[in-house]
């Protein structure tokens, strides 16, 4: 019977072309949008992981409670020892130390007095160690507008907006003024070796990036760090692995009642990223559901039109003694075949577009420069195995639903009137 139905579909284009186009379009959109949304969610998560959360993050309990205030007086100490232990205990991870500090960035005039100043957010990462991955991880090279990376102690990168506002040139000295870990006044002169623009309004207003050793010296944080971040070496966040790591670390290093003992947080426990990831995971289902509803409505309508066009055909088949139930069943089988054909075309097109967007992405840097959230500048799709079959679900279901609803008209036909209707 299937062979017979396939022949019918292929030979009678008016019966199959429109439904196949509708299904293929819907499946294309489902597959492409699912891949693109997945990619966007992953990009945003990954940017946050690189800049802020790591795949896991270690802080002292006391620092974690007040982390918005960047309280370096509560920072981690004996970090070298901790890093060595982490590298030995968890070799699948890459561990990095970072320091965050706030303060004023002051630009001197020729007599050393304040010419201009603005608020600064200082971030200290490992820039100068040989083999460091931090510069690449934070995309610093690509964010440099003028100048170059620090190559020696005492050099720093500042935000390009700040440099423009106060007329700071490359090679000029600026002073970072704030508080040391002990609460003393912190003054540290830096030579500006370059300017940065991240496309993020908060960072672009007053960021200063320096080497971690400079920050440790200036902030009296020798062998201290605001936080230690851990990244899976394959670059992909895996919550199951992160949970195992967290349980193991907190059990081994956590000390009950000691507010300065280290505590580990997973990516999903920070900055609301847990809810965000759940939303990303359900995005595919949401997309499929929307298209099932929308396509069912369209295909129902198409089925009704088809039913009208095939009014005489069904009449003849009924007059020849075919049961209504059998006719209804064959229209459903037809719908399944049309759904499969449309889904194959739609999935092929959707995957093609998703592969293209995975390779090239969509550059939105020009419209995100005034956004405070940590967002990537290029959004890329992500092709996952799910994309290869996700379109078949709405594709087939919608055609079946549409045909099932339209096919009810078959049961309304009255055999007694068939000859009159067929004008025999």
């Amino acid at each position: 019977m299937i062979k017979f139905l396939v022949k019918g579909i292929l030979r009678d284009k008016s019966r199959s072309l429109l439904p196949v186009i509708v299904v293929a379009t819907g499946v294309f959109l489902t597959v492409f949008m699912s891949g693109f949304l997945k990619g966007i969610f992953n990009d945003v998560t990954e940017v946050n992981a690189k800049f802020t959360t790591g795949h896991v993050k270690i802080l002292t309990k006391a620092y974690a409670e007040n982390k918005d205030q960047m309280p370096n007086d509560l920072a981690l100490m004996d970090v070298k020892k901790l890093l060595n232990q982490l590298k030995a205990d968890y070799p699948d991870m890459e561990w990095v130390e970072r320091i965050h500090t706030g303060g004023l960035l002051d630009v001197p005039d020729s007599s050393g007095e304040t010419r201009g100043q603005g608020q600064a957010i200082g971030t200290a990462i490992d820039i100068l160690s040989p083999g460091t991955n931090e510069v690449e991880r934070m995309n610093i090279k690509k964010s440099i507008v003028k100048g170059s990376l620090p190559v020696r102690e005492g050099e720093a990168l500042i935000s390009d907006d700040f440099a423009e506002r106060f007329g700071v040139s490359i090679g000029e000295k600026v002073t970072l003024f704030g508080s040391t870990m002990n609460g003393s006044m912190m003054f540290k002169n830096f030579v500006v070796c370059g300017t940065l623009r991240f496309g993020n309004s908060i960072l672009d207003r007053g960021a200063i990036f320096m080497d971690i050793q400079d920050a440790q010296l200036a902030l009296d944080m020798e062998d201290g760090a605001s936080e230690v971040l851990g990244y899976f070496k394959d670059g992909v966040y895996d919550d199951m692995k992160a949970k195992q790591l967290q349980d193991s670390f907190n059990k081994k290093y956590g000390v009950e009642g000691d507010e300065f003992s280290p505590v580990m947080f997973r990516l999903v426990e920070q900055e609301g990223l847990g809810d965000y990831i759940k939303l990303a995971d359900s995005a595919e289902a949401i997309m499929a559901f929307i298209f099932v509803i929308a396509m069912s409505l369209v295909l129902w309508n198409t089925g009704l039109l088809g039913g009208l066009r095939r009014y005489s055909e069904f009449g003849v088949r009924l007059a020849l003694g075919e049961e209504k139930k059998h006719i209804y069943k064959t229209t459903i089988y037809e719908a399944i075949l049309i759904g499969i054909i449309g889904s194959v075309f739609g999935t092929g097109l959707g995957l093609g577009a998703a592969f293209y967007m995975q390779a090239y992405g969509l550059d939105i840097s020009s419209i995100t420069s005034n956004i405070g959230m940590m967002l990537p500048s290029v959004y890329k799709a992500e092709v996952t195995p799910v994309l290869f079959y996700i379109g078949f679900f709405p594709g087939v279901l919608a055609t079946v639903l549409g045909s099932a609803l339209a096919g009810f008209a078959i049961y309304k036909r009255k055999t007694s009137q068939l000859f009159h209707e067929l004008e025999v």
Partner: protein
Amino acid sequence: MLKAIIMFVSAVLSMSFTGPDADEILNKVDQNMSSKNRIFESEMIIHGRRSSRTITSISYSVGNKQSFTEYLSPAREQGTKMLKLSNQLWIYSPSTDRIIQISGHMLRQSVMGSDLSYEDMMDDRKLTEIYSAKVAGNEVINERNTYILELIAKVDDASYYSQKIWVDTERFVPLKQEMYARSGQLLKRITLSDVKQVQGRWFPMSMIFKDVLKDGSGTEFRITSAKFDQVIPDYIFSKAALKQ
């Protein structure tokens, strides 16, 4: 009826307070606490969550417009100087050889991690110039009778919208102060003690500042030497003095 009872009780309570009026008390407080000029040597003990630090300094002030402070120890702070002229503040750091001007909201930041802000250190105006006062009652603090005064700012640029101060009824020295925001939120509390007579005036030589919005057990401020109405050379209150 209830209103009448409340009015009666209020009248009886107000009659029960006999003594100088609020302005008179505040005036006497100002006479003790303010002077033409003064030189203080002090130590500030800052209690952090991990450790405590003691910072010593010497400061010179003339009225409420000019003030110069030099930090003497520990080594990390030694040579750091602060100059206040009217409502401007400069800090000199010997390690960077820079003079940095502090302004705007930075004035509300903590000085050296203490419970004092730059604004607290700068605002030396007489209380009578900033606040209108009313007597709110009496209380015994450390076996000393005090008047409780409620102060409301009468100028726009007051650091704190209102204050409550407990003034020794004999020596007219505050023994406790509470500073409030306009919303009524308590911001800081100062406990003053070790009241001594210095050059004919009563003066609290020890103060504990507590920023109630901050963790920790507060900052102790002890005056080790207080001299009033001295001869202070003018050059001290210049930016040139910062680098000397």
